[in-house]
């Protein structure tokens, strides 16, 4: 397998409002190409991710860049869609099939949520599969955690407030507060599903993000004035059967999947959790970020609450998480979320993150799950 370099990344602003998918997708793709310093003619394969868009939207969007005959493949894996597109681009280069591949993802969940024609998710209490929404599933995870470990709603609010405050300094984030957000403010926002309030729930909207990956040889032709970002590991797993496994419902999956995928990623990368400088996770709700501290091996089982109390996972702390605001505040349009994590990590590892820069960031990890059924982890390094 060949070494793979992330030559460029880009994102269109994540917004609450519905966006013109074609426009923001091209914006993100052009930003990544410009960042890499290459033209579209150099791209030899494209992997296009989105959850809800008409048939063949991927190839249609790609025509906006140019008609060069390259293979264009649509990828869908729920929340993990963008990470899956990145992984396919990585695999194409690592496997020696191409030297330059583009991963591009976009979505507009605001359209989908607002319009019954697009299929409203959640069918209410008179349905068996539609009654358990993501908010409810993760809330039950939180309730059980509170029961077993004494975790408080204040800890969950502190994590959410941290992510809101990280997003204040991320130019493409969806939720950019004009003031420092407090845990009290998060707790006082309206209740969605106990203990999760609106400000603890991921921002749903529109967005697009892209990455260009290249072989090590090809990277020699590119600008050498900026740090080169390597993909140390790409790992993906699906669920393994566990006792009490839930099969019925839209958001399922054992937490063990994250620990298993992390173990594979660490082994492939030859690094451990103590080597990481920053981490992006699937923080659709703060309970997730809290549990992932432990499942990713950042701290021991049950010690996540102490990490939050010490501010270890805020920028300036020992191991910052969700440095662009995460799903909670940068936003979670679906498809592009995983690629936005890659974009943020690349910007941080290059030292180009401005006021939200993690000092001396050398190694970053991106974690995401898709519908609780797949987990994808990438480890990138300067």
């Amino acid at each position, binding site marked *: 397998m060949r070494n793979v370099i992330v030559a460029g990344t880009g994102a269109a602003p994540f917004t609450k409002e519905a966006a013109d998918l074609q426009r923001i997708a091209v914006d993100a793709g052009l930003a990544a190409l410009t960042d890499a310093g290459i033209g579209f003619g150099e791209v030899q394969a494209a992997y296009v991710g989105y959850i809800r868009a008409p048939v063949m939207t991927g190839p249609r969007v790609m025509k906006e860049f140019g008609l060069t005959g390259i293979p264009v493949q649509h990828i869908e894996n729920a929340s993990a869609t963008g990470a899956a597109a990145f992984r396919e681009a990585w695999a194409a280069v690592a496997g020696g099939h191409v030297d330059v591949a583009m991963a591009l993802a976009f979505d507009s*969940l*605001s359209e*989908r*949520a*607002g319009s019954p024609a697009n299929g*409203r*998710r*959640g069918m*209410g*209490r*008179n*349905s*068996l599969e539609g*009654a*358990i*929404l*993501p*908010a*409810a*599933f993760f*809330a*039950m*995870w*939180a*309730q*059980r955690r509170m*029961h077993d470990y004494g975790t408080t709603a204040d800890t969950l609010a502190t994590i959410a407030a941290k992510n809101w405050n990280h997003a204040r300094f991320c130019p493409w984030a969806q939720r950019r507060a004009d003031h420092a957000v407090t845990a009290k403010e998060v707790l006082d926002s*309206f*209740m*969605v*599903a*106990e*203990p*999760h309030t*609106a400000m603890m729930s991921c921002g*749903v909207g529109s967005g697009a993000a892209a990455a260009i990956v290249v072989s090590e040889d090809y990277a020699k032709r590119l600008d050498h004035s900026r740090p080169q970002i390597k993909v140390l590991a790409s790992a993906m797993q699906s669920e393994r*059967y566990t*006792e*009490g*496994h*839930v*099969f*019925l*419902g839209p958001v399922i999956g054992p937490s063990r999947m994250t620990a298993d995928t992390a173990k594979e990623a660490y082994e492939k990368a030859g690094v451990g959790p103590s080597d990481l400088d920053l981490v992006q996770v699937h923080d659709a709700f703060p309970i997730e970020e809290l549990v992932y501290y432990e499942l990713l091996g950042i701290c021991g089982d049950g010690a996540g609450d102490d990490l939050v109390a010490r501010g270890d996972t805020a920028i300036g702390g020992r191991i910052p998480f969700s440095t662009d605001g995460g799903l909670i505040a940068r936003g979670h349009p679906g498809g592009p979320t995983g690629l936005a994590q890659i974009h943020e990590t690349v910007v941080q590892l290059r030292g180009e993150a401005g006021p939200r820069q993690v000092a001396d960031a050398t190694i970053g990890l991106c974690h995401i799950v898709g519908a609780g059924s797949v987990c994808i982890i990438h480890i990138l390094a300067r």
Partner: protein
Amino acid sequence: MPYVPIEKRLFRIDGDTPVLLGSRCARCRETFFPRRRLCAVCFEPVEDVDLCGRGTLYSYTYVHVPFFGQTRIDAGGYGVGQIDLPERVRVQAVLVGEPGAWRIGMPMTIALEVVDERGEDDVAIFRFAPEEA
């Protein structure tokens, strides 16, 4: 009036009691809900089995905003929970009761609720309710 299950593949109705339809592996005895063709552990064919309608509450929440991506809060909320059955099966379901009615570890029992009275039949769904003391 006869009851008709809202999803026949998930449960049937005996009199006025919903019965969850599961599968059990003949070899390793692992039990699953809903029904499946092969054992998830040893990949052998499974046999049909009825699941116990009683269990303990593993976790729960109250959903105030029932529709994904919407901020309307006047639609009416409901409780949802995960119930561990004696067959080591965890079922997710809407809960009977109001906020404050549930606690982790409490015994729960399955209940029938009519959701649609249409013509000859009453379309019914299963929920779980705290067991009467």
